[in-house]
């Protein structure tokens, strides 16, 4: 019984939140990694792209809600998601046209593109706040829990509860579908392969008859879709607030790099490594150990490796360790 309690407590506070958070990071990191691999720069505007896509989804969700359209127990936002993705696609294509294309043609150094993306980040920042405001927005509806802590306790009679939110289940399912589709696309389709070729050697891709602008457009489209999905899932699970999306940028980058920039598999692995390391290293094991240990040995302190103050630092220390012992990231970052 105590053993079960320990397992449940661990799942409830460590495993489930980390898996959901990891999936969200992974989707975000995939976008960053694709841009890096194919367009060769670290896109600092990615967090704000996510915010924009989510905002578009939210606006459509509100429209649906006001029209009385709903999706049964699932959040209406899922219905609105395709529209949000379209909106985000339009945005990234416009920015590419207006901004990035010029630098591509100039063969500007990647760092210039990084700085340019910071400019775009500033601008998107302004636009999003301008349209939807800086405040937190709620748009989740439908069932909130697959199973709530209280129900679980009543069902099992255990002392510990286990909560699985609908948004968490949804996050994992949608993430898996998105990732499978992406991999199929990149490795099996002609367009996918041409994207990888372009990422490898632009000039030669040109000589092979690949239209570089098309590759770029496809990349942006995919990235817009990923960003919107990641942002919407995150918003459903937590809440939507522009500034938080900007803050997401750092863990997303950490995830992409731990995995190996440019490697999609790596991005996913990186997302989970970051999520799990943040949660486990600062977790206070007192409760779990309390169940497992005999009464006399029960820990008096919190049994916490590091205080949560250093949570953020932990993910970066993990990052550093990975980089020092496997300098190209877990999955040697090659271009897509």
């Amino acid at each position: 019984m105590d053993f079960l309690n320990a397992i449940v407590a661990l799942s409830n506070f460590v495993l489930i939140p980390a898996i959901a958070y990891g999936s969200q990071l992974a989707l975000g990191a995939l976008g960053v990694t694709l841009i890096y691999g194919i367009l060769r720069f670290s896109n600092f505007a990615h967090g704000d792209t996510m915010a924009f896509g989510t905002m578009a989804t939210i606006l459509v969700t509100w429209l649906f809600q006001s029209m009385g359209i709903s999706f049964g127990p699932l959040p209406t936002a899922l219905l609105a998601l395709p529209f949000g993705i379209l909106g985000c696609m339009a945005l990234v294509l416009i920015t590419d046209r207006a901004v990035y294309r010029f630098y591509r043609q100039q063969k500007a150094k990647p760092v210039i593109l990084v700085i340019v993306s910071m400019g775009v980040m500033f601008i998107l920042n302004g636009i999003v706040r301008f349209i939807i405001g800086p405040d937190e927005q709620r748009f989740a509806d439908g069932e909130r829990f697959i199973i709530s802590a209280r129900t679980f306790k009543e069902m099992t009679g255990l002392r510990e509860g286990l909560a699985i939110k609908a948004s968490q289940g949804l996050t994992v399912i949608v993430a898996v579908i998105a990732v499978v589709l992406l991999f199929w696309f990149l490795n099996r389709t002609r367009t996918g392969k041409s994207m990888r070729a372009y990422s490898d050697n632009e000039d030669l891709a040109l000589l092979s008859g690949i239209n570089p602008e098309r590759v770029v457009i496809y990349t942006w489209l995919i990235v817009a879709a990923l960003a919107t999905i990641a942002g919407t899932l995150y918003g459903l699970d937590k809440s939507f607030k522009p500034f938080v999306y900007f803050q997401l940028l750092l863990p997303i980058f950490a995830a992409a790099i731990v995995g190996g920039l440019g490697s999609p598999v790596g991005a996913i692995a990186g997302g989970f490594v970051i999520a799990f390391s943040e949660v486990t290293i600062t977790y206070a094991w007192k409760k779990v150990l309390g169940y497992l240990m005999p009464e006399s040995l029960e820990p008096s302190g919190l049994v916490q490796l590091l205080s949560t103050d250093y949570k953020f630092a932990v993910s970066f220390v993990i990052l550093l360790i990975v980089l020092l012992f496997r300098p190209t990231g877990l999955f040697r970052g090659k271009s897509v």
Partner: protein
Amino acid sequence: ASHGKEVKIGIILGFTGPLESITPDMAAGAELAMTEVNDAGTLLDGMMVTPVRADSTCIDAAAASAAAERLVTSDGVKGIMGADCSGVTGAILSNVAVPNGVVMISPSATSPALSHQNNEDNGLFFRTAPSDARQGVVMTEILMEEGVKDVAVSYVNNDYGKGLADSFQAAFEAAGGTVTISAAHEDQKADYSAEVGALASAGGERLVVAGYVDGGGSGIVRAALDTGAFDTFHFVDGMVSDTLTAKFKGEIDGSMGQVPGTDSPGASNFEKMAGDAFNPTGPFAKESYDAAALIMLAMQAAGSTDPQVYKDKVMDVANAPGERIFPGELAKAIEILAGGGDIDYVGATAVELIGPGESAGNYRQITYKDGEEVTVKYR
């Protein structure tokens, strides 16, 4: 008594940054006071007050100082309503207000470090919010009365959160309570699973949340509720607001909290005056109204817009003796002062300035029932 005279008052708040969602209401509160005075048109025989807004960013001391410097030296403001966050408030005070001799009244900076016992501020700094040292004591009283002896604390990792958590822990432990864990959370972060995991593991009858409702504070509450880690909370002033009830509805029933506030009729007056123009119950909107009102009334009392002159009058108009003044009665107050009378500004938050010029600290104790915020009593 010529018309067309103008005095500018600066409103410096974090219009961008982690408090960007509450600052518009605060600014609106301050501007409401100025409009009221302008409508009367009697301040210093027809002086018109113009508000000038500037962005404190809440976090970037250098940018805030630059903005304040511009307010003072280029716009020529004669008083500053602000800043909001304790950090930038300290920076503006020592870099701009004191060197230029400008009065500054903050509606919301609550850090104990801003109590200038030794006149480091040249008597230029006041605040209509109480120091957090006082809030820690009030919180302890409430919890003890409830019979709560074990709590976990989660505070926002800045001078406000940390200072409040420190003063609370000291007071609570002195009263015989136990703080199982006092852990920081970074504001505006993506995910709080780790923090809640640690808090849950440490346990406690209640979770004390000392953070911002627009930031990490709500994130912590959300995660704690969802995982079933805690179901009752104790909220500090940064948390109590309509946003909180809108967000959590019945989920936080049974939780408690306190905010600066009084049962004086001022608050409801203020809310009526505001109408639909902005949210008058927003955090520190009332304090902002009061801060702006105090600046203007002190000017009237001194008969001068020169900060070096009117700074000495701020305490006089704020405290007894004199006629009690509520929101909507600024015209009356000006009249009394012009006639050489004395006033006791009560305002929207029952202003009572003590010690080095900060609010004495009246608190409204609240609890949550059926998804509504219910006032229990005032202390």
